[in-house]
């Protein structure tokens, strides 16, 4: 065992790692961001108006906000579902990224690593092209496409790859993604008028969020988050490396499969309603690692809360900066994400192997 690993093992064994403080900070941030971004928008409502409308929906309170029916509809039917959906999507992408980074022990892993983006993109493209623009089946198709791509990646990687190092799965992901993207590109090339619809889906948007979208993905999000949170200690053990984890009695193959499946479920659900939003899965977990602790006991819960806050904030920028026109959400996260990504690569803690 190398010195570095011995130190890590010692840290893991001894330090009393508690996510309480960072979780509290992220939680307060999340509430503030939810309130502000529900108010901010083309309608420019005041925070008290928004708070009043929200309070009027609290059961048993019998609060009357006195806001106009239109303001009420803007807050309750349009802004709030968008904010909540953004929160769920952000949480899923951040948790997915954190999980993939742990499972594959790769700082650059994001939830799209195993071809989910290409699969969901192909599914969405097929539906948009076949139904000439209708979006009824879009979430289902994106979900199925993403799930098919990851399953294919896993089968190919596990069958032809070596003894579960994870690298063969990642390489299989590259191949599957290339294949799906090629099919998607050729489809688009033949149906040029649908380019705009597909393109705006690919760049990610929460503009058409409704409560039904929220209810659609909430169950998947809950299952995924629960599984990932209960596996946070095992993810810490995986950080030690294959052999050490095995010597501690951990079935690394099984843990890896469960974590990847749960992360994929959450990511596929998120992608199905919001399109492809890049960088969240990389920025948020790394930000948590750099500011708090690299242990998954902290990284996982704080990434979930922080991911929600981050994406809500990004979406607020996306729909106010050129209001009422929308800037694609994926563009906003990438503009924040790219410089941060470079910062992560250069950071001393990353070079010291904070993963």
């Amino acid at each position, binding site marked *: 065992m190398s010195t570095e690993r011995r130190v890590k093992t010692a840290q893991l064994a001894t330090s009393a790692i508690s996510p309480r403080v960072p979780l509290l900070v992220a939680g307060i941030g999340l509430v503030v961001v939810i309130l502000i971004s529900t108010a901010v928008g*083309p309608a420019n409502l005041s925070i008290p108006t928004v708070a009043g409308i929200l309070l009027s929906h609290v059961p048993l309170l019998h609060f009357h906000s006195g806001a106009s*029916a*239109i303001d*009420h509809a803007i807050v309750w*039917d*349009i802004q709030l*579902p968008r904010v909540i959906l953004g929160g769920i999507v952000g949480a899923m992408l951040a948790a997915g990224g954190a999980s993939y980074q742990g499972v594959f022990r790769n700082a650059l892993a994001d939830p799209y690593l195993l071809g989910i983006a290409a699969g969901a993109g192909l599914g969405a493209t097929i539906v948009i092209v076949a139904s000439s*623009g209708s979006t009824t089946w879009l979430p289902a198709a994106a979900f199925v496409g993403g799930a098919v791509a990851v399953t294919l990646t896993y089968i190919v990687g596990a069958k032809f790859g070596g003894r579960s190092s994870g690298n063969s799965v990642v390489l299989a992901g590259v191949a599957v993604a290339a294949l799906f993207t090629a099919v998607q590109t050729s489809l688009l090339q033949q149906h040029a008028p649908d380019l705009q619809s597909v393109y705006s889906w690919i760049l990610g948007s929460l503009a058409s969020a409704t409560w039904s979208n929220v209810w659609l993905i909430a169950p998947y999000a809950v299952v995924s988050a629960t599984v990932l949170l209960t596996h946070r200690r095992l993810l810490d053990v995986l950080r030690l490396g294959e052999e050490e984890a095995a010597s501690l009695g951990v079935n690394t193959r099984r843990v890896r499969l469960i974590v990847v499946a749960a992360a994929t479920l959450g990511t596929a659900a998120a992608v199905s309603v919001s399109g492809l939003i890049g960088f969240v899965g990389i920025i948020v977990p790394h930000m948590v690692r750099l500011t708090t602790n690299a242990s998954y006991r902290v990284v996982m819960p704080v990434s979930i809360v922080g991911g929600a806050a981050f994406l809500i904030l990004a979406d607020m920028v996306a729909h106010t900066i050129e209001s*009422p026109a929308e800037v694609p959400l994926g563009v906003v996260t990438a503009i924040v994400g790219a410089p941060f990504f470079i910062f992560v690569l250069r950071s001393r803690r990353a070079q010291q192997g904070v993963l």
Partner: protein
Amino acid sequence: MRSIQKCLVALSIIAGVAAPLGAGVSGASTTSSFPLTLKMADGTFTFTTRPDAIVSLSPTSTEMLYAIGAGSQVKAVDNYSDYPTNAPKTTLSGYDPNVEAIAKYNPDLVIVASDTANFNTQMAALKIPVLYDPAASNLSQACAEYGPLGKVTGHNAQADKEVATIKATIAHIVATTPHAKKNTTYYYELEPDYYSVTSATFVGKLFSLLGLTSIADSAKGLASSGGYPQLNASFILKANPTYIFLADTLCCNATAASVTARPGWSTLSAVKNHRIVPLNDDIASRWGPRITILLQDVADGLKGTPVPASS
């Protein structure tokens, strides 16, 4: 965005094979006399006889050709040219014109709506004349396209007549429709994801003839949208337009019922007062002879007359 694309991208191409015997007809201002030398998009061409194998790659130009009596000279039209229904529809794309596929029809005139440098160069090499009829941004631009079209096809008189008819019909509709009250606004939906038009677009200018103003005019950040901004639901609800016009009934099955069912939209006065007017997207995205039908549908909507979903 489909309708915008269709509109902006529709290309029509007419190709003229120079026939040896020119059927020269006199009467300079009414009928072209062949041989005729014209400056086309891809160079100067001499038409020894009137073009008889026209390829139109623009749905609007196809409609115009048939309206001025040149329908029998049309050999092929692009995949979106669905009106009139007897037009020889092919798989040719106006969006992404394929020179070889077009050349197979041996055209003596090609009409396009978008001007691409490479396309013109290739067509020039094949010595096929190209007429460029771009998307009009106002009524006079639309009317100005009939003149050259009539001249090159040998239907000057009918082209002039068609323009006069369109102008008279529009004047009649405007005169017989009670002018909308001041500050009467509308939301014009191009796609269910809230792409709309400002009053500065072709459609917007047509609507302002009836005293209507687009809610999109007050949107910030319009400069980059080219008059076709994407709005969002909060903005539309806050603007609370007097009328809602749906130009996505065919592409995306938008109906008064589907709009009413959108979360929060039932609070809008246009929804409560049943002022949702479905339009035919194909007609609404073209600047051809059927703009009078579009304006009539809008006028009927203002009068409260039920409008058929696809006129």
